[in-house]
């Protein structure tokens, strides 16, 4: 009659509760980088209502959990996005939105948009399409929730561990690097 849980099992239960809370409360930073930002209002409002899946907007990076990169990302915006991302509190997730974040999309030969987002930020979920419709966005959120529930959405840990590599890639594009430290 030994019901006392050992350490490993109890930490598993704690992790399960933590992940359950995290996946059911996603606060999305309201920051539109490209044309995809126009798909966010219908996703959030009454037609598609992302709030019923516990996805809600957050006003500032400090409060947010999810950073949506909505579409193309110019080098100038990348600097701000990195800064916003680093201000967010762990655990935090990134969703790459639209084909521009995956391989440059229709801006593949543009001189000032990046072609591959995961060189600069740790992306947990990609949503493809140009632009993805709100259904696709909701599917992306569902995928992210599934990953969080399994404890596999660990992009933020990966970013912290490989900060040097990410910094190298970022500084290759952003020549005038005047930024605060990580999570200042």
């Amino acid at each position, binding site marked *: 009659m030994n019901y006392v849980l050992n350490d490993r099992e109890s930490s598993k239960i704690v992790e399960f*509760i*933590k992940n*359950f*809370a*995290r996946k*059911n*409360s996603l*606060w999305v930073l*309201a920051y539109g980088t490209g044309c995809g930002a126009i798909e966010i209002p219908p996703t959030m*409002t*009454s037609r598609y*209502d992302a*709030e*019923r899946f*516990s996805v*809600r*907007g*957050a*006003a*500032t*990076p*400090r*409060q947010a*959990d999810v950073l949506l990169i909505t579409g193309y990302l110019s080098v100038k915006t990348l600097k701000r996005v990195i800064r916003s991302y680093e*201000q*967010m*509190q*762990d*655990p935090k997730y990134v969703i790459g939105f639209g084909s521009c974040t995956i391989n440059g999309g229709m801006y593949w030969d543009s001189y000032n948009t990046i072609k591959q987002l995961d060189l600069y930020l740790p992306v947990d979920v990609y949503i493809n399409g140009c632009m993805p419709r709100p259904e696709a966005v909701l599917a992306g959120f569902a995928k992210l929730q599934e990953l969080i529930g399994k404890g596999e959405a660990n992009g933020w840990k990966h970013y912290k561990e490989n900060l040097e590599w990410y910094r190298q890639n970022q500084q290759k594009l952003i020549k005038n690097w005047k930024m605060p430290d990580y*999570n*200042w």
Partner: protein
Amino acid sequence: MTFWQTLGAVLLTILIAFISGLFYMGIRRKVIARIQNRYGPPVYQNFLDVMKLWFKESNIHHGIMQHLAPLWMMAMGVSTLLFIPIVYNSDFWANFTFKGDIILLLYLMVFGSLGFALGAGQTGNPNSAIGVTRGLSQLVGFELPWVIALIAVMIQYKTTSLTDLVAWQQQHHTWIAFEQPFAFIAALLVLPAMFRYSPYDIVVAPSELASGPASEFGGKYMGLMMSSGSIFMFAKLALIVDVFLGGATSWLWMIIKTLALYMIPVLWSTVNPRYRTEQAIWSLWRWPLIFAVIGLLIATV
């Protein structure tokens, strides 16, 4: 009442206020969603939000005042709650009430906002500074009619004790809301401003101020603010129920009355856009103040 009984009552009061406050906020989100023709989040969504915020693994602050700011809010919420008698004629749920608690509550309800303003000032975020200015302006706006309404009640019944007010209402089988309607109307009109709901949400204003004073608070600080917000919300509702709506003979009545009262600012806020700062203050100093002063005149005559 032994020490342990008091402690148990206090802790249980805080716990029930916390849970019901979070549920009220969840109901609010659901109501707003239904009015906007959406399905809306589950009612327990706010519990998950608070849990998630407490489970955050990094929490940044920029100095000791910012570190303490949510604690001021929590201290205000808890202390306000504990000086309000919850259940009529019950020693166990009377908590710390004493003769003159209304006057103490008038002080306590301002204290947390001022402490939080100091903390928000230390973040150095310009949005915080603007939010604090607006918040203090609005505080001046709603404190005036609110205090005058309470003074009118205090003068009319010649008491500064919440217990006495509740006892009078229970013994005469009536509510002060009917006996002193002008003060009650003034209190109702300032209620959205006290909760910072639309049209008085100039302080948080997510789309223009990036949530104002709270813009640099993340992780556990945000979680503490949500918890204290729910407790303080319940405390304010309980105070108005005690003063104007006859108090409660049991926890069930208290919850029914506070929820019904809470629906008034909620429904009012869902259909209203945002005031500008000067509009907010003018709207608070016009009809609410007029009603409060009429109530005061009736009480003194």
